[in-house]
């Protein structure tokens, strides 16, 4: 009841302020009239009565004020008037307000966005129970991670004691027919214990059973929540029902929980048991169980440390046992690479993320320095104002409250805008994020990061904003009042100069990073991929269906069906108007085609029996060199004559030809690729090297064969179509041409070569764009800082400049005086910045291509840029100083 009255009375007085004030005034007025009347009634003259009444009741104005300021609403009213005044202040100093708010917004927004993006990858625990117990295990090849074989997995799983459960997994991309268009699904074929390793159980249905992960076991799948909703509309009765994948019926046995993330391969929608045939594993190294194409993970037993597990696995790798035979490529001689799951998924992107995180912290630091600088500049200007207010009787508390209100208003505006920048920034980051960035779906604006960035800028802003209030108390009002007109150098000049030097130094560090990355990108884009990327459309086609299975009665019938389909499809593509050339290849350069699938041993006739080379095997159609634009250096390309029954032709890449046959003509030499029990391939030509993985990675040795003459028919081939004009526009027509041969064959990756090229550079582009953006922000903030300090110092030194001019200093003298002042600050900043950047840019080394982190052009360019921008920032104040008219300045004082 009484609380209710407190609130409603207060609100009534807030909303009907005039009426409430009048009511209070009337009551006080009436009180004094009654007092006067009472005094008169005692028989006093009107003059005496008035005096008596005033003596008894005191000053009416004071009483009225006392009554008027009663209640909580009066505090609200004071805050409102503070806010009102603060808003007016900010409006009347629009330049200051805009720069401050933008500084805050950029600092808060950028750092929140970047931290939000980096956090789930580097810091936030993975979304699994005891995620720190999950390790990944890799084979090592030349010191780098490489896939391992099922045989290796079996040995490790049986010999090690550190793990509760272990699993292998590899991509499985079954085609699914029956939809509007045939499509390929992203799946993984895994051990039965896959979900146990992650510590996740299906939300619907059940997990795999060990009995299902045996050769010839039942065909079962677990589907993702995402796929379940898309294909089956979230129907719970789907469990136990078949789904047709790659021509076979698979029984759906489970659905993953909603929000389940497979961080090992984030786009996965299906899991099925791998069902390796292990019967021949100890005797026959040519079975699929010995192919190095599996990834492996394990969950540690409780209480076992990572170090113990690494030690144990190392021990196993070093001591082969007779009961676990190992082929040459699975000897484990290079040891194993064991990492925590979190580090493993982040390891490829970690240097880039750390660099970006460092860059954004620099931006935040510059923003903080700039806020301090702006507030100090402002407090210099306002000393007079606060002296006047103190002289007029404003209490110190009132002035401090006013200043805090102003700072908080700025901070709130900056924070609100910063939140907007963070939201937009996170969205832009996700859009820009390079493929292969793990956990992209988990990226969202991080509240803690926002609170941190907002908090730190606000605290700094409020503390700096209080400085004028300290002056009001520390100094006598009198000198402060005088100072406002005396225009001498302010007390914070030194601090502000130091701050500007800091800003320039921080900006330089960022810009050096941006410059180095820009230079590497230039270098990278100048790299010749070895073929012509323009006007090239690529489509990957994966054959699917039982028509491509070998019949027991006719071995090889499936393979010839496959070859026939691709031949006919290529024929159809040739008919599309506007298509100049077309071909297909088993391995598409600059695509995400996994290189391990296409790496085979090559053995030349003149090699010693133990030797050999790892080469990339390209199975191509006739005309591949022409369609791709790969130069034929000698001999000829694969053509129509290289049919199944013709002598087997091979092309060598330039580097392979040169290393194998230095100074000789390789044409006519003979080699085996893959199995050695087949007829020799005869070298018919040498073609230029092609960058396979990315522009930054040198091409491995390569051998090109005709698809008609390889020892197996690839089930997945990429069409390369050279078009007249925009390649992307041809996609529908080319797809329809392929489907005109067989409607049920999924076309799984359609992209122009230019788009694929952009993807291979995506991580570098991503880091470069961020560094450039941050570099520009830093440069702008530093320029604002220099300008602000010089402009302030010119205003403060107007009198001095006037005296100099009166004593005969020319305009150019004065211009030089101010410019020199500004450039000295810049030079100091650059010098300190160079020292800092020498350390900081070393962190970028792994991201650079083709240049050293001491690249002279980048460093000189950045120093020049910063100097020029600083010069421009100095020019305006210097120009203004040179225009000072001594007669006016001196007379004004």
């Amino acid at each position, binding site marked *: 009841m009484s609380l209710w*009255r407190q609130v409603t009375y207060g609100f009534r007085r807030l909303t009907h302020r005039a009426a409430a004030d009048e009511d209070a005034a009337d*009551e006080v007025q009436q*009180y004094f009239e009654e007092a006067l009347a009472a005094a008169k009634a005692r028989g006093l003259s009107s003059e005496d009565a008035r005096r008596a009444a005033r003596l008894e009741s005191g000053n009416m104005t004071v009483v009225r004020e006392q*009554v008027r300021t009663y209640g909580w609403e009066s505090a609200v009213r004071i805050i409102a008037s503070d806010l009102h005044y603060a808003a007016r202040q900010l409006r009347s100093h629009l330049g200051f307000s805009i720069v401050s708010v933008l500084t805050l917004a950029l600092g808060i927004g950028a750092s929140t966005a970047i931290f939000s993006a980096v956090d789930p990858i580097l810091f936030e625990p993975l979304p699994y129970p005891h995620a720190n117990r999950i390790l990944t295990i890799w084979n090592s090849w030349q010191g780098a991670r490489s896939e391992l074989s099922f045989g290796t997995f079996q040995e490790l799983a049986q010999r090690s004691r550190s793990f509760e459960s272990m699993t292998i997994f590899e991509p499985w991309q079954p085609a699914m027919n029956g939809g509007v268009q045939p499509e390929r699904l992203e799946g993984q074929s895994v051990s039965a214990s896959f979900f146990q390793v992650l510590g996740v159980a299906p939300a619907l249905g059940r997990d795999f059973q060990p009995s299902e992960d045996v050769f010839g076991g039942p065909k079962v799948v677990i589907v993702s929540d995402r796929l379940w909703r898309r294909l089956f509309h979230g129907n719970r009765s789907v469990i136990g029902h078949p789904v047709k994948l790659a021509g076979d019926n698979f029984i759906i046995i489970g659905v993953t929980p909603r929000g389940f993330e497979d961080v090992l391969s984030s786009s996965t929608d299906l899991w099925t048991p791998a069902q390796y045939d292990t019967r021949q594993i100890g005797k026959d190294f040519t079975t699929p169980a010995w192919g190095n194409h599996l990834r492996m993970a394990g969950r540690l037993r409780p209480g076992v440390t990572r170090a113990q597990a690494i030690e144990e696995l190392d021990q196993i790798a070093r001591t082969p046992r007779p009961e676990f035979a190992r082929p040459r490529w699975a000897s484990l001689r290079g040891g194993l690479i064991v990492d925590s799951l979190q580090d493993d998924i982040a390891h490829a992107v970690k240097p880039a993320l750390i660099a970006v995180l460092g860059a954004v912290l620099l931006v935040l630091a510059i923003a903080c320095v700039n806020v301090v600088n702006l507030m100090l500049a402002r407090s210099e200007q306002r000393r007079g104002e606060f002296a006047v207010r103190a002289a007029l009787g404003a209490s110190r508390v009132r002035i401090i409250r006013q200043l805090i209100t102003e700072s908080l208003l700025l901070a709130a505006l900056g924070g609100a805008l910063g939140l907007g920048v963070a939201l937009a920034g996170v969205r832009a980051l996700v859009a820009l994020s390079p493929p292969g960035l793990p956990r992209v779906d988990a990226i969202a604006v991080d509240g803690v990061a926002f609170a941190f960035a907002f908090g730190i800028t606000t605290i700094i802003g409020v503390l700096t904003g209080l400085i004028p209030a300290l002056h009001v108390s520390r100094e006598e009002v009198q000198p402060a009042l005088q100072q406002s007109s005396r225009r001498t150098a302010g007390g914070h000049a030194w601090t502000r100069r130091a701050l500007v030097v800091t800003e320039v130094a921080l900006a330089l560090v960022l810009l050096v990073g941006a410059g180095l990355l820009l230079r590497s990108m230039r270098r990278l884009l100048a790299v010749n991929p070895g073929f012509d990327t323009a006007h090239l459309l690529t489509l990957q086609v994966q054959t699917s269906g039982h028509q491509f299975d070998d019949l027991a009665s006719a071995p090889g019938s499936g393979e010839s069906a496959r070859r026939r389909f691709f031949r006919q499809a290529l024929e159809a593509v040739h008919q599309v108007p506007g298509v100049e050339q077309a071909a297909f290849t088993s391995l598409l350069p600059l695509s995400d085609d996994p290189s391990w699938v296409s790496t085979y041993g090559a053995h030349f006739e003149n090699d010693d029996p133990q030797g050999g080379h790892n080469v990339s095997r390209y199975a191509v159609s006739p005309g591949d060199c022409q369609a791709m634009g790969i130069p034929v250096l000698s001999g000829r390309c694969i053509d129509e004559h290289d049919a199944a029954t013709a002598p087997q032709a091979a092309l060598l890449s330039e580097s392979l030809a040169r290393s194998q046959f230095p100074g000789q003509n390789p044409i006519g030499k003979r080699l085996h690729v893959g199995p050695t029990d087949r007829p020799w391939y005869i070298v018919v030509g040498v073609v230029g090297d092609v960058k396979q993985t990315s522009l930054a990675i040198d091409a491995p040795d390569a051998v090109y064969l005709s698809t008609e003459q390889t020892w197996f028919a690839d089930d997945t081939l990429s069409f390369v179509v050279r078009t007249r004009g925009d390649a992307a526009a041809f996609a529908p027509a080319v797809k329809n041409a392929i489907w005109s041969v067989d409607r049920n064959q999924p076309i799984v990756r359609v992209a122009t070569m230019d788009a694929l090229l952009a993807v291979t550079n995506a991580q570098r582009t991503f880091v470069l764009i961020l560094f450039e953006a941050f570099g520009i922000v830093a440069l702008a903030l530093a320029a604002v800082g220099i300008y602000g300090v010089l402009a302030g110092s010119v205003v403060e030194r107007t009198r001095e400049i006037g005296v100099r001019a009166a004593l005969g200093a020319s305009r150019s003298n004065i211009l030089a005086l101010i410019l020199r002042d500004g450039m000295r600050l810049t030079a100091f900043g650059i010098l300190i910045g160079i020292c800092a950047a020498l350390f900081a840019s070393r962190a970028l080394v792994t991201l650079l291509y083709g240049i050293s982190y001491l690249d002279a052009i980048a460093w000189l360019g950045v120093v020049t840029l910063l100097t020029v921008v600083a010069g421009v920032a100095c020019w305006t104040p210097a120009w203004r100083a040179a225009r000072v008219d001594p007669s006016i300045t001196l007379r004004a004082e």
Partner: protein
Amino acid sequence: MNESNTDVIQGTLDMLILKTLSLEPLHGFGIARRVEQISRDVFKVNPGSLLTALQRLERSGWLDSEWRQTENARRAKFYRLTRSGRKQLELETADWTRRASAIARLLRQEG
């Protein structure tokens, strides 16, 4: 800023106002005069303290107020005790009596 120049014992002003209004509704000056008269001018009431105390009591729900004519035909804001105000007066009276008699006992003993 307020309360300093009143002679009313700290914390008793509310009780005195409630007591005064328990007899009949009065306006601010009427309350002040009544308190002074009944206390035989022992207590002087400061108008600032009185008027803010009236606001406080009204917001606590112990008083209601309305503007009406005084006997000499002027408009004044009259305060009236509410039912919960009456209860509050009983509480405060009991509390005061208890304390006053305790102090009186102590003083007698010392004397």
